[in-house]
């Protein structure tokens, strides 16, 4: 797994953001005059121990190389004993975890909510402004819009200062109201909202997300996104709870949500509640693909783009494989023994790091 945190020693007890620059990058910042107060230059290398110095402090990082982290933006954590990688310069998968609080309690939540909340927004804002050109930054949680009063203006500021950036926000969309129309509209081409919907009926959706009234609330907030012209990625994790209802959901989507940018049908992730409830929830599409095929075909017939997220390509019947792009983030992706020698490994997202091989897909085979 790619590490997202390093052991470190900071000269400051307070947290601070630093962009890590090896020699060439540091020279380039001086040459172009683009150096910021957050830029830390590599001043010493001793094996896998790197020392960076910036106006805000000095940071010693253990267990990596200067090439590996060049251009990364890290947060020196409170206490000064570790550094969190907020932006990995070479990765397309950078996500800010805004909070661990959530008002829903989904059966398969990969990141079960916690009550404790630490406000890191100012650090995220600084990191976003230092991100490499053209990056799309993930915003996740918990439920990030619990803090929308600070989050939406932060996103607006970043997008104004950095016209090359975009955000991909994962939100349950429970906390949007009429007053948010303008900010949503102002960001509409730059922000993709990943919003979950698990069934076309309130009872099933509410049971899955662990909150009564959640479906009806979505029916109130989705029109606000639509009126703002917001970009929407509708997300449906497929489980035994809702697999049989997929075709009905597809019919609902094409008629009532035709304005979405795409509909992502997602496989379960075996971590958090997803691991605890795996045996009860996991729907093995490798042996029963019909409900998914029906949903894909209903959507395609009506011009709604539907894609498969977290579906290893060999588990998908050949005609549908092109709908299964590589979606598992690099830092939590792995390949199995079966994958060696597979012709499609390079375009396949593989498996989650925590995929349970003994209780997973029955049909796996190299292509």
């Amino acid at each position, binding site marked *: 797994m790619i590490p997202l945190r390093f052991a470190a020693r900071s000269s400051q007890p307070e947290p601070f953001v630093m962009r890590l620059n090896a020699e060439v990058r540091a020279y380039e910042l001086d040459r172009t005059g683009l150096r910021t107060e957050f830029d830390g230059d590599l001043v010493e290398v001793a094996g896998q121990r790197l020392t960076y110095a910036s106006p805000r402090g000095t940071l010693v990082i253990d267990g990596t190389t200067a090439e590996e982290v060049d251009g990364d933006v890290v947060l020196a954590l409170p206490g000064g004993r570790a550094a969190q990688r907020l932006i990995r310069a070479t990765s397309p998968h950078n996500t800010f975890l805004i909070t661990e609080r959530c008002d829903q309690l989904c059966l398969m939540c990969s990141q079960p909510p916690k009550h404790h909340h630490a406000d890191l927004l100012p650090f995220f804002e600084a990191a976003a402004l230092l991100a490499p050109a053209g990056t799309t930054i993930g915003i996740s949680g918990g439920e990030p819009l619990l803090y929308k009063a600070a989050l939406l203006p932060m996103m607006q500021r970043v997008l104004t200062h950095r016209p090359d950036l975009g955000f991909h926000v994962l939100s349950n969309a429970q906390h949007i109201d009429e007053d948010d129309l303008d900010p949503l509209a102002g960001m509409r081409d730059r922000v993709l909202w990943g919003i979950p919907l698990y069934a076309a009926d309130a009872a099933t959706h509410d049971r899955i997300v662990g909150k009564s009234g959640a479906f009806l609330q979505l029916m109130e907030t989705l029109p606000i996104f639509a*009126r703002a012209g917001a970009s929407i990625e509708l997300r449906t994790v497929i489980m035994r709870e809702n697999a049989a209802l997929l*075709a009905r959901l597809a019919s609902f989507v094409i008629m009532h949500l*035709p304005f979405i940018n795409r509909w992502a049908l997602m496989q379960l992730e075996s971590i958090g509640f997803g691991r605890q409830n795996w045996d009860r929830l996991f729907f093995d599409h490798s042996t029963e693909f019909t409900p998914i095929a029906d949903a894909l075909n209903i959507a395609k017939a009506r011009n709604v783009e539907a894609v498969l997220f977290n579906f290893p390509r060999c588990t998908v019947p050949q005609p549908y494989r092109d709908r299964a792009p590589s979606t598992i983030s690099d830092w939590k992706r792995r390949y199995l023994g079966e994958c060696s020698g597979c012709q499609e490994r390079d375009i396949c997202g593989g498996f989650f790091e925590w995929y349970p091989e003994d209780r997973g897909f029955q049909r796996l085979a190299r292509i």
Partner: protein
Amino acid sequence: MNIWPLRFRDLGCGSLLFADDAGGFFKGTEDFLHRYAFDALTDEDQAFLHEGGHTFQRELDLSYLGFAYRWCARQAPRRQLGYVILVPTLRCNLTCSYCQVSRAPEGARGFDWTEDTLDAVLAFIGGLAAPEIKIEFQGGEPLLRLDLLERVRDFCRQRFGKAEFVVCTNLQAVSAEAWDYLAAPDTFISTSLDGDAVTHQRQRTRSTELTNAFFGNLDRAIEQFGSSKVSALPTIDIERPPAVDEIISSFVDRGLRSIYLRPINHQGFARRGRDPDVGLDRWNAWHAAFIEHLIERNFRTGTILEEYYFSQCLKRVLRAGADEHVDLRNPNFFASDYLVIDHDGVLYPTDEARMQSRIGRIDLSVGHVHHGIDTEKVATLNAASCNNFDPDCIHCPYQPFCGSDLVDDISRYGRIDLPKQATWFCRRHTSLFDKVFELLYRRDEATRFSLSRWADLESWPEHLVREHQ
């Protein structure tokens, strides 16, 4: 609960098709119609209508916006001019029985672009805002002026990020230089193949020698460039149509999987001495039988052949945005995304408009390449290019899927205000959409196999089309 207005049409056997303005549809019963008309809908009726997107509770709620979006998506006209049909010469080396273009003899003078016209054409194309361009060379026989084709292509390749060229040629006389020209990866061939050799000879080539020359060139083109670079269109005389099997084998044997059956257009030579609507019923029946033949054949062989226009109609029923065919769009705005430049530099909105003007029936030209597009005239034409508010179309459940073709109305009847049900365009498309819906609600495997592939689906999903008692 508010219900968006439903139109309906008898499908036979006590069933009716219901459709709303956004193209949402379902099959229902006489009983349902009665309940709908007399405001006696049951809870089940209301739940069914709500699920299908035919209702809303209040303005701007989710159902309302879903409907509004689907309605808008079906209207969206294309606005950027990026497809230009050029007629560098009107001269032709064939005299087809139905010639649509008011052709000129091969040796005639004064029917080619002058140097001055060429310059103006290049300046006009060069001034377009589109990032990509598609050029279709029509005629006459464009290969008679390969030099002009070369210069247009050279210019467009330099001027645009992406450029594609289609040469509409009779493939009768192809010089070595012409073969080189056609070999380019950005250049495609469109030709006529009127079913079988006998019909092709009767309608087009007139002699065995010319027939053999054509088929030799067609086969060489497909062998050399692949079937994806060559399209062949049969023009069918419904008085003497070739045998269906003959048409199919002419295409399949050459690796061509898409057949676009075109009835003889009511233009040019084809006008003379014919009632405008002659053969329509026969055409509709023959075309429907052809579709059934394809369904049976596809299922038997496990391979897919399509009739291009029928697939277009099917896609338009299922979804918004299937606007590729310029005869089947609504609104069908003129000179908005494509345009014809004639041999004398005159601009026309369509090829058919050019022919109508040439025979002197009506001047449908919309400007000249030297002076640009006459926007006032285009606006006048556009005012009648929309079926949404036509007093007949507003009652028709097929309106959201159908198009409008005022040039065809002018061509046949000399006017555009006939009751739509009395026009060839309406009667032909009503028949086509009747067939589409007949098949959509048919439940056999063979039909579903063809329908799914024609609609670009991997298989036919349950619940795609809805029914209510």
